[in-house]
């Protein structure tokens, strides 16, 4: 990485992003009128339009100082767009009666995949700039990740990190399920299989998925055994194959089938036709709250953890009055999109009355021609 390449990367990002945003705008424009004028969707359309305009007016980057300013600009736009996910979810859930489930899910998928792509591009460039600056100043570290791709991501460490965050929450952190009367510790997580597996991947993506899946497992296990003095453990099995890594998470949370859905993969859908819970009042309320807050939702683990830490630090009187983490219910659809982004997969199998097994398969980056959607 040298100065010339960094500048080139900056201009690539500068010219590529408006193209992709333009595609998103076109996609939005093609939706039924009644959908785009919905609360939530309208807001997202405005945001994208403004972003497009700003990008196309941005001057060429010629020097390192230009690049630094550009990185700040990028950071700001990312922050402005942090409410996109909950707003879009809200808007599309409300539009669910007007759009066929397949079309709705396909549209949402394109939006979210494009968003991931743009963020990957931007964050990768910003990370490269940072490490380049550090090198110049002599403060770089050896063996640091290449941009945002971690070449030797240790799966067991990532799992343990997520487990530590999740288990440090209070026992009644999930307000919408009965958590029993005893302050019983969260389940243990046993990790087995090829425990020393490392592979090249984007840490934020992997940890988001594991975090969401484990969060579901913890919640379900506690909810299923409200009177137990010790909750049954959760098992995470890591399996390394030549071109992919599989993580299987097995819990005893009673399974996921409910009256809202007909098959487990319905949980990945944003349409209420597939998943009737999307139009639950509580769900919609939570989406509204998050989409109108300034922090929005970026779909990262760090963001969720910071929220809890802030809440505990402020010693909120009772969990019911402040909902630091309202359940908006898009953990699974987002995880599915992250998982399939580089050509992996997420599969849920439920043994109703007993528990759930989730199979997460992720390709080793760089070994295949990953089918990356843009």
């Amino acid at each position, binding site marked *: 990485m040298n100065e010339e390449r960094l500048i080139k990367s900056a201009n690539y990002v500068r010219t590529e992003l408006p193209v992709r945003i333009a595609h998103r705008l076109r996609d939005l424009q093609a939706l039924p009128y009644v959908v785009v004028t919905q609360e939530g969707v309208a807001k997202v359309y405005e945001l994208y339009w403004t972003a497009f305009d700003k990008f196309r007016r941005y001057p060429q980057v010629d020097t390192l100082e230009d690049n630094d300013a550009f990185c700040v600009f990028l950071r700001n736009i990312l922050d402005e767009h942090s409410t996109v996910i909950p707003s879009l979810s809200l808007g599309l859930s409300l539009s*669910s*009666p*007007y*759009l*066929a*489930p397949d079309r709705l899910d396909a549209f949402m998928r394109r939006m979210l995949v494009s968003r991931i792509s743009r963020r990957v591009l931007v964050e990768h460039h910003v990370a490269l700039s940072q490490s380049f600056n550090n090198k110049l100043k002599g403060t770089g570290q050896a063996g640091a990740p290449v941009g945002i791709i971690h070449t030797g991501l240790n799966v067991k460490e990532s799992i343990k990190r997520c487990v530590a965050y999740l288990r440090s929450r209070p026992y009644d952190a999930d307000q919408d399920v009965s958590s029993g009367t005893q302050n019983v510790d969260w389940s243990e997580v046993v990790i087995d*299989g*090829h425990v020393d597996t490392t592979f090249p991947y984007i840490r934020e993506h992997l940890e988001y998925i594991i975090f969401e899946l484990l969060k579901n497992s913890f919640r379900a296990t506690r909810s299923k055994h409200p009177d137990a003095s010790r909750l049954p453990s959760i098992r995470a*099995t890591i*399996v*390394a*194959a030549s071109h992919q890594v*599989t993580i*299987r998470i097995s819990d005893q949370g009673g*399974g996921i089938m409910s*009256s*809202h859905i*007909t098959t487990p993969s319905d949980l990945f859908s944003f*349409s*209420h*036709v*597939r998943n*009737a819970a999307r*139009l639950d009042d509580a769900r919609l309320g939570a989406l509204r709250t998050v989409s109108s807050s300034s922090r929005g939702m970026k779909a990262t683990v760090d963001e969720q953890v910071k929220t809890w830490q802030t809440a505990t630090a402020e010693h909120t009187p009772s969990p019911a009055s402040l909902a630091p983490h309202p359940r908006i219910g898009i953990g699974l659809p987002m995880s599915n999109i992250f998982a399939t982004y580089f050509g992996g997969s997420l*599969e849920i*199998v439920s*043994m*109703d*009355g*007993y*528990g759930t*097994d989730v*199979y997460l398969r992720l390709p080793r980056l760089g070994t295949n021609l990953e089918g990356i959607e843009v």
Partner: protein
Amino acid sequence: MNHTTSLWRPYLHSATRSTRHSRRQFHLGDIHSAVPDAPSPTEIAPLLEEFAKHSPRPLTLPKLFSFGQPLTAESILESASYVLSEAPRLFGSRVRNLEALPFIVGMNPFIARILAAHRKSFKTIAMFPPVTSLEENTRVTAQLEALVQAHANDIPTMAKGFQECSRYMTPEEISEFLDSAIRNRIAVRLIAEQHIALSRALQNGGKKVEEYIGVIHLACSPKQMIRMCGSFVSELCEATFGSAPKIIIDGDVDSTFVYVPVHLEYILTEILKNAFRASVERHHKQGYSSRHPIPPIYITISPPGSETPIASSAPSSSTAHPFISKHKQRPHFLSMRIRDEGGGVAESNINKIFSYSFTTAGRNSVSASMDDIDFSGSGGGGGPYAAQHIGGMAALDGSYGGGGGGLFGEMVGRGVQVGTGTIAGLGYGLPMSRLYAKYFGGSLDFISLDGWGSDVFLKLRCLDDAEDVVIG
């Protein structure tokens, strides 16, 4: 595996020699002589047509239950009348399907033999007079039993035939044919064996077996069935490989449900055979000595839930919109997860495991010495698989009625009849298990973690709550 092949080799040689000597110029008439008294196609064509004209009286589960509740002479006679109308229809449809196979396939000695046997059975059962008394019923029941016995070797024989004919039909065509043949066979056996069991129960007078209605067990215990099948497979595994893993049962271990035990027995045996073989082979491959125990097989039982019907939980912004879903009442299932650490299925094979005759058994085998016999087709060879070949041939040689001539036929015959004689071989275990599971509306799913192990998810429909299931 080597000691097994060295056992079979001399038998194989003598068996092939005797078959070759009896093979001369093959005439069409020879097929019929291979099955004594088998009617010719032209002879039964009118009978077939007549039965095809009858509108089917399909048997539903509640109807099947009703013959045994209460169990009286009248209910038995009614059951007999159902059997005598449904069984010929089912046999007739199988005859027609067999006759619809390509000529060259129908000419294969194994397939031809099956076809002739079916024609004979069809004629026999189509010509039964109606049953009007319990004595007549006893006679008919005995004949039914003999009929079921006569067809015990059908699957391995057909397997052999299709293997030889694999160049004349695509795998999809073979699959489709076998799927419908096996489903048909499950139906016939169910109806026949239910009637036989009920008749016997009535004969035993008041000695009612509380928990059974014919072959349906009202309190089928997965735990007991697992123990039973587990010990059988364990013996087989020890005999073949010298060691076997343990089975650990968890979840709701004492749950019971209403089911046909012999179906569950078949499915469990096949799944366990796969799991045991994979676990032992992987364990050996990794070079572990006997100090390291073979990872056990974990079977988790999940009881049938009390599902609440969904009815109208549709949102209030309702029926005007076109995309409101209508959820139906959900049936009840008992679920089992069979989890092993046998290394899983390779990515390249995962799509083939449910196709008939795909097996990884017996690759390095006796086939070199079997060049006299044309075993062309999908590479299965000897090893434990050879026994299945022999079984087919033993059924050919000697009387129609299975069990062939001589010690050898007997040794193999029993195992082959149950279809579970060797630890691996036919490649039919998974597809057939899935058919059995799906028969009453259940499912069988296979998830592989390549490099670690496999999970098999088995969902079986509780039969006390299955009004919509139609037999046959």
